[in-house]
């Protein structure tokens, strides 16, 4: 073997089609609902149709006698075992956490809460039997808005807490040179500057992942095995053990292929608790798969905030202070992250701008609705929306171009690394470059000219331009920071890279992909690191028995943290292989070079391939002293800091003033996500992310009626747009590598969603400024837009 063997081309940066797609797209895989176990029983849930009531009685007799029914279980039956669903983030030491039973015992607090469980031989029989469970509800008054929940005399959802407020978090920040805290800065601005106040609404959204939640628990082996369509198999395992008193080593959790999550499957759910408890009780495998209508109603919702922003600035538009007051709707109970989700936005309202002082004031409150938790962006889209709407509105107030206002206030390229007023150090960025590129691709000046022209001739179809210059914090997260924030777990990630004797590779990752393409990206990373063929690498994940260590996937963390763990583990493999190779080549390790998958002695043509070394490590016939057999590397990475992708999104919308219809004419995004491992994957993430952001701006809202029923209970009314409703996007990138990890990557999973919503809303509002419109509540339905125009005319 010589060193000049054919070497695989550089993988990182290559447009590789995804390995996992064929089986995912054709469905030739085992989704959780496809799984079967011998003697398996089926679970169906009896859910409350009412939003707030005490449970008078639960009559299960008819259901128990129904054909095929094995058991009917109520909250009373499970009261001693079910414990409470966990909340792992105390955003304040005084945070009030109500008990959260999986099956309601005496009170239901949202429509969709589980009140009884039917187990039957077939799914159809279980479905038939739930109709026979007769529950008597004594209605209680319903609280549907945080404002009502926090008002004096409000009906208290959790009487033992004495209040509907779960927590009140205030974070006060100021820079060294600041004249004082944000109150002082606002005071100063009121005298010789500008104080600008705005209120915005973040509507309640439903993650609406494609695959409904499904779980199967098999209690019959030595370990209890739970298969669940979850984003968090590792976290779930720990929490199941802690909450249900099951020995952790007796528990195995498997996330098979999962059809999307977007944060919606980042949860420890009543359904999972129930499936495990019931399976254990009956001693038989039990499966539960929710229907879509159950999913929309009872899987956690996202966003749902009232926002009030107060900006202090100098007369020339230089911003000095920002005060943010939020009321975040938690729903009926605290979810896994609970108030932690809006708290993640705390560090992002200041965004890319330089403020002297900043305050984040958050109140979290309970209402009789589904609980809320992370949804793509988790707190950061909300923050970006607030500040980017504010900047566009402020620019209009000043009569300044919105891009000009931003440029006046953003962190300049030469100022990086920059520590923001909120205490985060942004390592790198280039807002100027991204913006310039976006403007050019967009045809900014031409579109502004067209806008003016349409205004002049009072065209019934008006044109608007919206800006969003965002950054986000991802790569969650440095464990010590999580500890400081009182989040119960850490933010590290683990990988093992294992050379098999035949030269093939297994990469075991603690990341838990549910559509992100990790199998492909990790293969690309490992292929380059080891000089091995992309197709010779297998990525294993999602099963706590196979990938025992991990912190799962959310918060755009997997590439930045998980990918780095793969790099580090592969480096260890190369290091060990080098020593073995040197021994095989009878040279000193210092004289051995590694390139293109082979170890060669410098200055000679003697070489050993990685495959040969792997076999030698396996056979162990002649290993150097102190070197253990087999060739494997292990690494756990705890990031030092967050990573900060950024970008500029520009949106042009046409607004038909006769009907209120908003159409996106052009959408351009230039994102800087550091180094790119796989451009195709990045495109996919950007497209998907932008679409979800546009959907929030124009289409989606979870609406409850006055009785607390979710009236957007199906996709007929909860409007998830399809390709037919969306524009073709122009996407591009600038590349400012992260300085905080060896690959220079920043993460992209949520960026599109974070950026796009304000860009679209800003564009529609911009179109209608001459009509006296300065804000429209999302989603910008034609009705709301038309109504805003009518109201604007009246003013």
């Amino acid at each position, binding site marked *: 073997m010589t060193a000049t063997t054919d070497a695989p081309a550089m993988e990182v940066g290559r447009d590789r089609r995804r390995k996992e797609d064929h089986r995912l797209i054709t469905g030739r895989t085992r989704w959780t609902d496809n799984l079967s176990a011998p003697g398996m029983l089926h679970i169906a849930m009896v859910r409350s149709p009412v939003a707030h009531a005490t449970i008078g009685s639960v009559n299960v007799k008819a259901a128990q006698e129904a054909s095929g029914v094995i058991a009917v279980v109520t909250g009373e039956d499970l009261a001693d075992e079910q414990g409470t669903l966990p909340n792992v983030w105390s955003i304040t030491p005084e945070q009030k956490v109500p008990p959260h039973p999986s099956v309601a015992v005496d009170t239901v607090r949202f429509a969709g809460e589980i009140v009884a469980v039917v187990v039957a031989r077939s*799914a*159809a029989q279980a*479905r*038939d039997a739930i*109709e026979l469970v007769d529950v008597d509800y004594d209605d209680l008054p319903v609280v549907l808005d945080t404002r009502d929940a926090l008002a004096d005399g409000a009906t208290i959802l959790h009487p033992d807490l004495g209040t509907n407020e779960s927590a009140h978090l205030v974070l006060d920040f100021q820079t060294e040179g600041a004249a004082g805290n944000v109150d002082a800065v606002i005071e100063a601005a009121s005298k010789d500057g500008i104080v600008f106040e705005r209120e915005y609404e973040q509507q309640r959204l439903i993650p609406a992942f494609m695959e409904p939640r499904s779980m199967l628990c098999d209690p019959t082996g030595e370990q209890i095995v739970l298969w669940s369509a979850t984003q968090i198999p590792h976290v779930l395992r720990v929490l199941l053990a802690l909450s249900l008193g099951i020995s952790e080593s007796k528990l195995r959790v498997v996330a098979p292929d999962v059809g999307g999550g977007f944060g919606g499957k980042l949860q420890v759910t009543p359904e999972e608790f129930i499936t495990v408890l019931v399976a254990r009780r009956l001693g038989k495998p039990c499966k539960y798969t929710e*229907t*879509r*209508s159950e999913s929309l109603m009872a899987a956690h919702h996202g966003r749902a905030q009232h926002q009030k922003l107060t900006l202090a600035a100098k007369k020339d538009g230089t911003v000095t202070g920002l005060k943010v007051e939020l009321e975040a709707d938690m729903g009926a109970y605290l979810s896994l992250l609970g108030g932690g989700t809006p708290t993640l936005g705390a560090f992002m309202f200041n965004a890319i701008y330089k403020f002297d002082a900043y305050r984040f004031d958050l109140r979290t409150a309970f209402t009789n609705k589904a609980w809320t938790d992370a949804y793509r962006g988790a707190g950061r889209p909300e923050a970006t929306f607030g500040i980017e709407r504010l900047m566009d509105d402020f620019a209009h107030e000043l009569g300044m171009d919105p891009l000009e206002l931003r440029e006046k206030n953003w962190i300049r390229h030469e100022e990086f690394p920059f520590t923001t007023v909120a205490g985060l150090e942004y390592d790198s960025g280039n807002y100027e470059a991204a913006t310039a590129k976006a403007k050019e691709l967009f045809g900014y000046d031409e579109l502004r000219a067209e806008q003016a022209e349409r205004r002049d001739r009072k065209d019934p179809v008006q044109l608007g331009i919206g800006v969003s210059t965002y950054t986000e914090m991802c790569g969650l997260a440095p464990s010590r920071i999580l500890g400081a924030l009182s989040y119960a777990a850490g933010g590290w990630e683990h990988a093992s890279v294992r050379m098999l004797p035949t030269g093939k590779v297994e990469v075991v990752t603690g990341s838990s992909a549910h559509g992100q393409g990790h199998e492909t990206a990790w293969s690309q990373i490992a292929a380059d690191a080891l000089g091995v063929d992309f197709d010779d690498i297998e990525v294993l994940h999602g099963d706590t028995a196979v990938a025992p260590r991990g912190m799962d996937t959310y918060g755009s963390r997997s590439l930045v943290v998980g990918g780095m763990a793969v790099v580090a583990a592969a480096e260890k493999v190369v290091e060990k292989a080098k020593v073995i190779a040197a021994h095989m080549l009878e040279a000193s390790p210092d004289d051995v070079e590694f390139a293109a998958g082979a170890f060669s002695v410098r200055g000679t043509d003697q070489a050993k391939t990685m495959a040969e070394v792997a076999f030698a490590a396996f056979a162990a016939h002649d290993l150097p002293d102190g070197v253990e057999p087999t060739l494997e590397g292990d690494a756990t990475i705890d990031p030092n800091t967050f990573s900060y992708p950024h970008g500029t999104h520009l949106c042009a919308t046409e607004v038909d003033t*006769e*009907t*209120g*219809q908003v159409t996106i004419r052009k959408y351009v995004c230039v994102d800087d996500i550091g180094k790119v491992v796989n451009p195709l994957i990045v495109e996919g993430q950007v497209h998907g992310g932008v679409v979800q952001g546009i959907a929030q701006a*124009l*289409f989606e809202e979870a*609406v409850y009626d006055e009785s607390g029923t979710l*009236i*957007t209970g199906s996709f*007929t*009314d909860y*409007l*998830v*747009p*399809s390709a*037919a*409703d969306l524009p073709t996007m122009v996407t591009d990138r600038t590349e400012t590598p992260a300085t905080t990890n060896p690959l220079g990557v920043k993460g992209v999973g949520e960026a599109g969603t974070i950026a796009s919503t304000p860009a679209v809303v800003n564009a529609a509002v911009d179109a209608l400024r001459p009509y006296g419109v300065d804000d429209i509540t999302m989603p910008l*339905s*034609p*009705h709301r837009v*038309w*109504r805003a125009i009518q109201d604007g005319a009246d003013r």
Partner: protein
Amino acid sequence: MIPARFDYHAPTTLDEAVRLLAGAGDEAKVLAGGQSLLPVLRLRLAAPEVVVDLGRVDELRGVREDGDTLVIGAMTPHAEVAASDVVRRHARVLSEAAATVADPQVRHRGTIGGAIAHADPAGDMPAPVLALGGELVVVGPGGRRTVPADDFFEDLFTTALGDDEILAEVRIPSHQGWGGHYAKFTRVAQQWSIVAVAAAVRTEGGSIAEAKVALTNMGSTVVRATAVEQALVGAEPSDEVVRAAAAQAAEGTSPPSDINGDADFRRNLATVLTRRAVLAAAGS
């Protein structure tokens, strides 16, 4: 979701279907394309004991000309109606409307007869049929009868169809040479009409000789915009003139208010869409 149990029959002739239906009393439902019934069954908003599936009754399917009348079998899928040159020639607005129903998957299963019998106020089929003065042929144990569209749509989800009757045919007098346009307003592509307008226009010597306009989702049933029709007789097909006529589109209607828009918004939409539909029909 899993429907409750039911007895299923798939007759191959219309007579057999009528017999089965008569024998089952009021606990039976007719299954056409299933695009409205199946969701109801799966959500268990109804649990009929008997379902009579017309999918194998071939005689109910197809498009043909019968002298000056366009005849469409009740079990003809929307996709077939939309693709048919015969329909396009005789009833342009119906052809257009059929092409807007939901999405391709639904259009290949859903049928014109099923949609009309269902009489969803937001459904697209009644408006063109009403506008063009169609007739519905109904078959029951008592025999065959013909009901003019004017008398067929009685109320919310309620038609002149008896529980033991089956809609067999849609008959539409030919409007060959007329322009037609279906203007449908939705937020997302596959949604039910928030408001829609079916317009058929005959022009003569450069002006509108006659116009027929019907509105979708402006009340509990489809309605004719008779005030608009009258105002358009002899009118110039210009934006200004048609705009004035269309301003009366919402007269006599009682549009619903829901999360897609309140009654005022719908009234506004009706006038805007009527103008656009009439202008397009006049120009086409």
